[in-house]
């Protein structure tokens, strides 16, 4: 393994300190940034420093954080709000959970800093109800921070007050979208609204609101401790600092990694992740969750940042990174993601509610071996229109997994529709089981296992599968101890 590929800024305290003890956070420099800011910086300077750092939102779109705060600062409002988006809904992503479980105080400190910068005195952490441990630790952290006077009234004698409350999500991926999140915090169905007005103008309860995700916030205290200039030295031209990825799937060393922007996928997969499980062949890496795309081997060496990922049809997203090996069917993966987005669509706008459902149905057809080449054209055309017309980010990005897999793995789609074959052997309707007469000893194990009694043959003589009756369940394949069944 080659040196230190990882650099931990957002995760600086995770696994190092006791998240349930605020003193450990303070010992590591916690609240020094807030203290310094309240002591010697004007809100405008705080925003300038963040702009200088080049920090961009780590939750998806990559909007410059400083600019976001500046908008909220400029807009007048009787009250203003800071919301921490901890509704990590990407399947296969757990960066935010890890930060909340490992270093919850850093989020509170960052929220207070943002509050000071925009002139907000209230904050909410909107957290997934499925994260009980994170909720517990966050609750303890908030209590301790209040007791220590590091949030609440008149923080460190500065005259600045900032309150933080927790709000629970209830299982809706779309609530990662900021307008839907705000609806949910207000106690409504998490349906997104058309922007403008942006939350920075009319957000929670119609007041200027800034929504930042957990990882973005976790970076903020460090920026003030290490200096915006030094932060901006890390990364690429457009994307500064580091990015946390949840490395999962068919890779040897699954885990949470934090690398400077501009690290290549190869370094992550092979150097940090130690390659593919079982020495199998790499097929694709999926980034950006249901909004992202599948990246093939040919792009393993591009330095990753917001722009480069977008260029190759994926996106940074929140940082889920799933490694797929040669046994993965890309049509099946696209179908998996579409099933997810159709389940999680709020149902408000036509293209997402019906369009994505139709995409999913076409994919089902294809994986069942009933697809045609026209279906492939429909996927592409409809996918493009859904991206172009959907109301919110969920709909606008939902076709990405289909479009990117079609772009890079078109052959696999063609095999499904033309040859009625699933090259990875995943789509069960397209799998064919045959008994190799030479290897079959007639033990009858397969016939016993078959739920549809479609295997016949005499004891100690080669058996045969009636293809017309076979439901392709694979029971015979598993039952055979002599490798006499060929799966193709």
């Amino acid at each position, binding site marked *: 393994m080659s040196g230190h590929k990882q650099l931990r800024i957002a995760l600086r305290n995770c696994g190092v300190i006791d998240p349930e003890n605020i003193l450990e956070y303070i010992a590591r420099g916690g609240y020094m940034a807030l203290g310094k800011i309240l002591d010697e910086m004007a809100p405008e300077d705080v925003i300038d420093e963040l702009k200088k750092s080049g920090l961009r939102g780590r939750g998806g779109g990559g909007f410059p954080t400083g600019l976001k705060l500046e908008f909220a600062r400029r807009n007048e409002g009787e009250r203003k709000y800071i919301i921490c988006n901890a509704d*990590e*809904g*990407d*399947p*296969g*992503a*757990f960066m935010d*959970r*890890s930060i909340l479980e490992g270093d919850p105080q850093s989020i509170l400190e960052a929220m207070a800093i943002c509050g000071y910068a925009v002139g907000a005195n209230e904050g909410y952490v909107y957290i997934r*109800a*499925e*994260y009980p441990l994170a909720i517990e630790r966050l609750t303890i952290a908030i209590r301790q921070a209040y007791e220590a006077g590091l949030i609440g009234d008149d923080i460190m004698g500065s005259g600045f007050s900032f309150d933080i409350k927790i*709000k*629970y*999500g*209830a*299982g*809706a*991926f779309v609530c990662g979208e900021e307008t839907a999140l705000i609806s*949910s*915090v*207000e*106690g*409504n*169905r*998490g*349906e997104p609204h058309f922007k403008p007005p942006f939350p920075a103008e009319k957000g929670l*309860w119609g007041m200027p609101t800034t929504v930042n995700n957990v990882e973005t916030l976790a970076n903020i205290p460090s920026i003030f401790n290490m200096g915006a200039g030094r932060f901006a030295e890390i990364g690429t031209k457009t994307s500064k600092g580091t990015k946390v990825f*949840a490395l*999962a*799937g*068919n890779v040897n060393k*699954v*885990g949470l990694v934090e690398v400077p922007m501009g690290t290549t996928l190869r370094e992550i997969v092979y150097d940090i992740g130690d390659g593919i499980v079982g020495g199998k062949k790499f097929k694709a890496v*999926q980034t950006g*969750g249901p909004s992202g795309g599948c990246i093939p081997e040919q792009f393993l060496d591009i330095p990753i940042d917001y722009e480069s990922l977008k260029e190759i049809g994926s996106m940074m997203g929140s940082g*889920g990174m*799933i490694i*797929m090996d040669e046994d*993965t069917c890309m049509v099946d*993966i696209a179908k*998996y*993601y579409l099933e*997810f987005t159709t*389940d*999680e669509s*709020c149902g408000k706008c036509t293209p997402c509610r019906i369009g994505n459902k139709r995409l999913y149905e076409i994919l089902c057809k294809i994986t069942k071996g009933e697809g045609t080449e026209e279906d492939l054209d429909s996927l592409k055309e409809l996918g493009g229109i859904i991206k172009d017309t959907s109301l919110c980010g969920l709909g606008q990005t939902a076709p990405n997994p289909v479009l990117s897999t079609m772009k890079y793995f078109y052959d696999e789609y063609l095999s499904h529709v033309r040859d009625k074959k699933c090259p990875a052997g995943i789509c069960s309707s397209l799998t064919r089981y045959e008994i190799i007469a030479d290897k079959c000893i007639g033990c009858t194990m397969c016939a016993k296992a078959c739920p549809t009694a479609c295997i016949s043959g005499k004891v100690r003589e080669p058996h045969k599968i009636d293809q017309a009756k076979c439901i392709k369940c694979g029971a015979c394949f598993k039952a055979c101890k002599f490798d006499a069944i060929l799966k193709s």
Partner: protein
Amino acid sequence: MCNNSLAEEKFKELDAFIDGLEEDEGNLIVILHKAQNLFGYLPREVQLHVSRKLKLSAAKVNGVVTFYSYFTEEPKGQHVISVCMGTACFVRGASDILSSLQEKLGIKCGETTKDGKFTIDSLRCVGACGLAPVVIADGRVHGRVEIDDLDKILVELESGVR
């Protein structure tokens, strides 16, 4: 619903919880979480109770309940087994685990066995991707699950031994 006096106690506890909250229009979801914790699910009478207490229309409360997948209007079995269907688990065979579990219990995902013992659920990522595939049985996370482990998990649940 279970016996009446028990339900009454729970309604009292729910009311006390609601009364203890700071005035904030946005409390509906947090209250529904509490109610589901107390009652195990959100039957119509509980939703109506909440709607009347908060002076919200029943349609609004029901609209919120049906929007979020965390809330359920149906009672669950004594034991709830959830299969994580997050991407990491999916690429490591979670759907096989789920179908095998469905076969074993003779019910589909989201259903409860006739004897009321088991409910199967699927979950969208609990964030334990490092241990994929993951099965959560009565709140306990089992990592790197293989089909052969399922029987053991079921027996454990039934016997209450961990």
